[in-house]
C-alpha cells in the first residue's frame, strides 16, 4: 500500500509539473495571438471567452505572475481549456472529448497488445536461445527503426488503393453517425486495422528484445537450476519460474517508456487522418491553434500518467515483495 501511495504522490507531482510547464509555454508565444483571433472574428466572440483566453495566454498585464498562475489553475479546475482557434466556437475541452476515445481505442489497445505479444515472443526467444526467433531479431530491429509514419505511408500505398478493403484515411465511413450500432462499429473496426497493424509491427520488437535479454539473464539463476533439479516440467520452469521473474523489469520498463511510445504512435494517426488526438495536434500546429495544442499536451500527459499508475498496479499484483511492507 505504501508503494502505491508513493507512486500516486509522484504522479501528482508530475501532473503539477506538466500543468506548470503548460502555464509557461504560451507566455513564450511572440505577439498577441488572442488579438488576432478577436479581429478575425469581430463581434462573434463573447466577452467571457476573451477573458478566458487572456488568462490562458497571460495577457492580463495588470496582474503579476502569481495571480496569473492562480487564475490559470482556477480556470483549469473548471475544465475550461479555452477556445479552439481552428474549430472556432467550440471549446478545446469539447474538441478533445471528441477525439480522445479514438486515440484510447487505437493507441491504447495496440500498445497493450504489442506489449503482450512481444513479451510472449521474448519469453520463447530467451528460453530457447539460438532458435529461429533469434534469427528474427535483426529483421524486427530493422522494422522498429522505421519511423511509424513512414511505415504507415507504405502500408497505405501497398494495401489501400481504390477498391481495396482497407480505407486509406478517416476513422469511419463518412456519412455514418458515431454510435454503438451495427453500421458504425464494423466500419470503425475496418478503418482501424491498417493503423493498428502499423503500430504493432514497428513497436513490438523492443518488447521482444528486452524480454529475451531478461529471460537470458534470469535463466542462469540458481532457483532455475533448482527447479530443473526438482524434476519440474520444462514448461513449468519456463513460465512460472523464469518468465514470471523476468516479467517484472519489463513491466516497469513498459510504464517508463509509455511516454515515448504514445508520442510515436500519435504520428500514425496523422498519416491515416485518424480522428484522434495526434491528428488534432497536427492540425492545431498547422493552424497555430495554441489553446488546442496546450490542451492536447495536457490530456496526453495525464493519460500517460494514468496508464503508468495502472502499470504500477499490475506490478504490485505481479511482485509479492512490494505488498509485504
Amino acid at each position: 500500500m505504501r508503494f502505491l501511495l508513493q507512486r500516486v504522490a509522484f504522479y501528482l507531482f508530475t501532473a503539477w509539473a506538466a500543468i506548470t510547464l503548460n502555464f509557461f509555454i504560451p507566455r513564450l508565444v511572440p505577439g498577441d495571438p488572442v488579438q488576432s483571433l478577436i479581429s478575425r472574428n469581430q463581434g462573434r466572440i463573447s466577452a467571457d471567452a476573451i477573458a478566458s483566453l487572456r488568462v490562458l495566454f497571460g495577457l492580463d498585464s495588470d496582474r503579476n505572475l502569481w495571480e496569473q498562475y492562480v487564475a490559470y489553475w482556477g480556470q483549469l479546475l473548471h475544465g475550461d481549456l479555452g477556445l479552439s482557434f481552428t474549430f472556432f466556437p467550440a471549446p478545446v475541452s469539447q474538441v478533445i472529448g471528441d477525439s480522445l476515445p479514438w486515440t484510447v481505442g487505437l493507441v491504447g489497445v495496440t500498445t497493450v497488445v504489442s506489449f503482450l505479444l512481444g513479451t510472449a515472443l521474448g519469453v520463447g526467444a530467451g528460453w530457447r536461445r539460438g532458435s529461429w526467433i533469434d534469427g528474427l531479431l535483426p529483421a524486427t530491429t530493422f522494422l522498429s527503426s522505421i519511423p511509424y509514419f513512414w511505415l504507415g505511408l507504405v502500408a497505405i500505398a501497398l494495401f489501400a488503393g481504390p477498391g481495396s478493403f482497407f480505407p486509406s484515411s478517416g476513422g469511419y465511413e463518412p456519412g455514418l453517425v458515431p454510435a454503438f450500432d451495427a453500421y458504425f462499429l464494423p466500419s470503425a473496426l475496418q478503418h482501424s486495422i491498417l493503423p493498428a497493424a502499423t503500430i504493432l509491427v514497428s513497436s513490438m520488437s523492443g518488447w521482444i528484445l528486452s524480454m529475451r535479454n531478461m529471460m537470458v539473464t534470469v535463466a542462469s539463476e540458481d532457483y532455475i537450476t533448482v527447479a530443473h533439479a526438482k524434476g519440474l516440467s520444462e514448461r513449468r520452469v519456463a513460465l512460472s519460474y523464469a518468465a514470471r521473474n523476468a516479467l517484472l523489469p519489463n513491466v516497469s520498463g513498459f510504464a517508463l517508456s509509455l511516454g515515448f511510445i504514445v508520442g510515436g504512435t500519435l504520428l500514425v494517426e496523422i498519416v491515416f487522418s485518424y480522428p484522434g488526438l495526434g491528428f488534432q495536434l497536427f492540425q492545431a500546429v498547422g493552424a497555430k491553434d495554441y489553446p488546442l495544442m496546450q490542451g492536447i499536451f495536457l490530456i496526453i500527459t495525464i493519460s500517460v500518467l494514468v496508464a503508468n499508475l495502472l502499470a504500477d498496479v499490475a506490478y504490485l499484483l505481479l511482485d509479492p515483495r512490494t505488498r509485504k511492507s
Partner: protein
Amino acid sequence: MTISPSSIEQVIPGQGAMAQPSARARRRRFRFVANPKAATGLVVLGVYALLAVIGPWIAPYDPDARGADVLQAPSARHWFGTTHLGQDIFSQILVGARSVMVVGLIAGVLATILSILIGVTAGYLGGAADEGLSAVSNVFLVIPALPLIIIVTSLVDRASDLLVALIIGLTSWAWGARVLRAQTLSLRRRDYVEAARATGERTWRIIGFEILPNLTAIIASGFVGTVIFAVMSEITLAFIGISSVSSWNWGTILFWAQGQQALAQGAWWWFVPAGLAIALLGTALALINFGIDEFVSPRLRTGGRTRIRTADGRTVRMRVGFTPVLAPTTAAVPMQDTRKDVTP
C-alpha cells in the same frame, strides 16, 4: 523504482575474478569491433558520417534546382527520380544527410552530458540531492517527449537545425540519467572506491577517475539511444512541417512527398529512399547498441551453436548458464571482468 530498466545492470552487481593477465587483454583490444553486429553498425554509421561531410559536394544536382523532368521514375540521370518541380531526389537525400547527422550528434552529446551530470551526481551523493534529482528525471521521463518537442518547436518560427537539436537534447536526457544513477549507486560502495576515499582522494577525482571509466559502456549505449531518438524526432518535426522547410533533411523530403500526394500519384520513389535511409541509420545505431550490450554481458549473444554433440554421440541443447568445455577454443573467457576492473 527498485528494478533496473536495462539488462546491462543485471550483470554487473557481480564480483568477478581478478583481471586476466594483461597480455591476453591487449591481444584482444579490438574485441568490440570483432562483434559482427557492432562491426556492421559501425561500418554503416561510418558511411553515413562520410556522406554527412561530403554529401553536398558529391550531389549531382542542386537540391533546390528545378528541372524539366517532372515527377520522373528513377533513371540513369536521376537515380532516385524527381519531384513535382523536377528536383533531383538523390541530391536531396545526399544534402539532407548532413542536417540529420548534425542534429543527432549535437542532441546526443548535450543529452549525454546532462545525463552524466545529473545521474552520476544523484547516484554518488545520495540523500536529499538524490531524491530531488531523481524526481526531476522521472518527471522528464514520464512526460511524453515528442508532443512537448512539437509544441515548443512550433512556438518558434522556422526553427533552425541547431535550435531543434538543443530542444531535443534538453528534453531527452532523462533515461540516461536514470540508468547512470542506478549504476553509480551500485559502484559507490565497491571496495576500490572505498579505498580511494580512504586514501583521501577528492570527490571530483573519485567520480572522474574511479567511477566514470566503469560507466563507459552505459554512457555509450545511452548516447547511441539518444541519437536514435533525436534523429527520429528531427525527421518527424520536418515531416509535420514545423521546423524550417527551406533546408533539406529526409523529413523535409517526406513532407513535400506527403503534401504533393506522392502516394496517390504513384510516385513511390519520392518517399521510399528517404524512409529506407532513416531505417538503415536507425538499424545501424541499434546494432551498435546490441554490440555494447553483448560486450558487457556475453550471455546476451545470439547465434552460435546451441546444439552440441557430446562424446557419446548424443546431441544436447545447451542452456544459459552452461559453460561449454567440449572445445578448448570456446572456453569461456570472463570477458566483462577485464573491462570492468579498469582501475587497479
